[in-house]
């Protein structure tokens, strides 16, 4: 059937739905829903890791293969450094830029290496906002409790306390650099309510929050003349005789040469794993989100935390085909957008946490109340025109210009027509275990941002990622810089690789996988041809 014909039910039921209030699920029902429908609980998608710091811990098949994968670097590679620096930052997204700026500001020599361009990251796409408790009726403690509840009480308390308490000073720093957060009429910061949060706490720059922050941070990195190595993908870390981190080896993606960087400390800000397409899910992530930092740290002996849990954002686009997996911001639901099944019914409180909302969408679709596209995808409606009905014409266009434009390019006016959505692989809840200075159990190896784990527990709250990047980017940068003066540059070896390889052999690993992946293999191979002999 034509998409417009199917959308009629959404228009027809709108007024009736507006009268309705849906309570959140009681905790038992919520747990059962998640255990039955959330992809994290699909046992066949998981297996134990066979060796290394997280031996016998379960994770998804796609990640397990990469963690056990072999390095591109030989045991006796030439490790003469091309560059020497105090602090080496790997990754050019939000956490990487924040780390580089703070380390530089504290007086350290900094090199920032990134496998694509400076700023190419998930951060640039963050639309929903940044949670910081600035409203008078809110507090850092409430922010802490909301996050803990959303993370199923599994969050690291110390990391979380640090994040919520440093939030306001981060906002001040960003404003000082020229970030244009939305304001109230009285000049105070405008705050929006996000899913799973009890108080309005989201600072926004319309629906371009990540883009605005990244435009400014990138510009600042350039203004500060921080040395940048673009199109350089980290392929291995370096360690000294004590197993402390002393640098990294890169592959220059332009000329395929190896680049060795000696550093007193290394900050991995390499982001998430969406492009591994775990369990076949489409993803909202950027081109380079292949979990490189996890593989590199794991081979060095860094322990990972919560790597069995991923966030499937409730609203990934399902139609049109070209936008599959692209994010439809949670801001739509924050402003009252309903989720509607094929029968025209709501089925979940739209402002529940992401894992609950995603599970409920999967339930609707598996129980036959979804809408299917001819390419075999299925989804439910997100009633975007409701926002104009509720708050006046022009609301969608004014508050969600990025999303309006994205769909307009394919002839869809989301202020008039609802959009079809289904959960999309969005975020790695866990990652490399860190302390409050963002350091791992490997000395002088820091991890910041999505690549790190513990802070978000088993489900990250909307708007907590941008804050995570800024707070732990800063902490890693400051700590690494503070060590530079007293620390001698350590020896450059790959002894950790020899240990890792011995371990792999003992466990009969010959999968032939080389990690990190660097970029997903989307290039279509030439179709097989039959040849004569």
């Amino acid at each position, binding site marked *: *059937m*034509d998409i417009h014909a199917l959308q009629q039910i959404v228009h027809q039921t709108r007024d009736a739905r507006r009268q309705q209030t849906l309570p959140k699920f009681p905790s038992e029902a919520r747990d059962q829903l998640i255990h039955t429908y959330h992809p994290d609980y699909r046992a066949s998608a998981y297996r134990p890791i066979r060796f290394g710091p997280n031996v016998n811990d379960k994770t998804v098949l796609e990640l397990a293969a990469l963690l056990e994968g072999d390095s591109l670097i030989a045991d006796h590679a030439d490790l003469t450094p091309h560059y020497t620096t105090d602090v080496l930052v790997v990754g050019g997204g939000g956490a990487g830029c924040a780390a580089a700026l703070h380390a530089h500001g504290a007086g350290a020599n900094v090199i920032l290496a990134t496998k*694509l*361009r400076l700023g*190419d*990251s998930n951060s*640039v*796409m963050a639309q929903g906002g940044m949670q910081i408790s*600035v409203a*008078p009726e809110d*507090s850092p*403690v*409430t922010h*802490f*409790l*909301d996050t*803990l509840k959303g993370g199923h*009480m599994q969050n690291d*308390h110390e990391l979380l*306390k640090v994040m919520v308490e440093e939030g*306001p000073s981060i906002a*001040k720093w960003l*404003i*000082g*650099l*020229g970030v*244009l957060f939305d*304001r109230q009429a009285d*000049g*105070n*910061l405008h705050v929006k309510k996000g899913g799973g949060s*009890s108080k309005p706490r989201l600072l926004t720059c319309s629906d*371009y929050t*990540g883009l605005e922050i990244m*435009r400014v941070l990138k*510009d600042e990195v350039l*203004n500060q003349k921080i040395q940048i190595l673009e199109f350089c993908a980290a392929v291995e870390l370096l360690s000294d005789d004590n197993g402390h981190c002393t640098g990294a080896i890169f592959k220059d993606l*332009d000329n395929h040469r190896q680049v060795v960087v000696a550093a007193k400390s290394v900050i991995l800000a390499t982001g998430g794993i969406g492009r591994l397409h775990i369990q076949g899910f489409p993803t*909202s992530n*950027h*081109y380079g989100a292949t979990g490189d930092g996890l593989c590199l740290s794991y081979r060095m002996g860094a322990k990972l935390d919560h790597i069995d849990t991923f966030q499937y954002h409730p609203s990934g686009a399902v*139609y*049109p*085909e*070209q936008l599959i997996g*692209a994010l439809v911001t949670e801001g739509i639901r924050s402003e009252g957008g309903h989720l509607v099944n*094929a029968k025209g019914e709501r089925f979940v409180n739209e402002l529940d946490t992401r894992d609950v909302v995603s599970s409920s969408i999967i339930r609707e679709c598996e129980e*036959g109340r*979804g*809408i*299917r*596209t*001819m*390419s075999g995808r299925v989804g439910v409606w997100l009633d975007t025109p409701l926002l104009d009905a509720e708050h006046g014409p022009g609301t969608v266009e004014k508050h969600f210009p*990025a999303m309006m*434009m*994205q769909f307009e390019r394919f002839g869809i006016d989301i202020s008039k027509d609802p959009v079809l959505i289904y959960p999309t692989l969005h975020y790695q809840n866990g990652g490399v275990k860190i302390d409050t200075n963002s350091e791992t159990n490997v000395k002088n190896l820091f991890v910041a941002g999505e690549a790190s784990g513990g802070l978000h527990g088993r489900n990250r709250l909307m708007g907590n990622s941008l804050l995570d990047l800024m707070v732990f980017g800063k902490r890693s940068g400051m700590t690494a810089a503070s060590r530079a003066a007293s620390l001698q540059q350590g020896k450059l070896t790959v002894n950790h690789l020899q240990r890792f390889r011995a371990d792999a052999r003992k466990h009969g690993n010959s999968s032939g996988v080389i990690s990190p992946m660097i970029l997903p293999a*989307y*290039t279509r*191979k030439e179709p097989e041809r039959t040849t004569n002999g």
Partner: protein
Amino acid sequence: MTQEDANVIDQPEVLRHKMVSIEISGKKYEVPEGITVIKALWYTGQEVVRGAGCLGGFCGACATYYRTKDDPKVRTCLACQMAVEDGMSFTIMPPFPARKALYDIQTLKDPKQELFNLYPEAPLCRNCNACTEACPQKIDVREGVWKAVFGDFKSVSEMFMDCVMCGMCTPVCIADIAPNLVALYVSRAQGAHFTEKPQGLETRIKEIQDGRFKEEWNRVLAMNEKELADHCATVT
């Protein structure tokens, strides 16, 4: 019709599997109709390193020139946000060597005057409007440059909130202005110098420094798992 059949959306581009002829950097290929420009590159066996970034229309890495069948007009798009059609011809734009001025945003004395030192070419706009036509985000770039020159920084910062810094406005400028970089400077100056300091934020920072939440922290952090879970449940 069963309930299930009733809820199926037709997608002509998926149903038909029609192949179309396109040109990539002047070379002819056959690709399925309706896939994105970036997917057409992958489909034709090309490795993509430069020219792809967020794949969501936000980073500007995949700025592309294209032309549709028999139309002489060369247009611009983001390759991850554009579907291919029969007869289309396109080339991904290489990085353009625009000059970015370096500045310390926080210590600027007179940001509106400083614009002319940092970007002396900005007032030389000859009104050709090519930048506006080149913008895949539909920003009125030319108007923005003039507003910047006349000191209306607030309007510029609002107009350029959609800017993904793809830089397509730059190679077309006959006055060698890089409008996106000018606008970035102007927006940052607007935020850092001409926007009210939020009082509530200052208050909150001071409250944290003064330990206003200390007692509550102590109480919450001393709770055992069960107590904490019960306490969380009361927060609504």
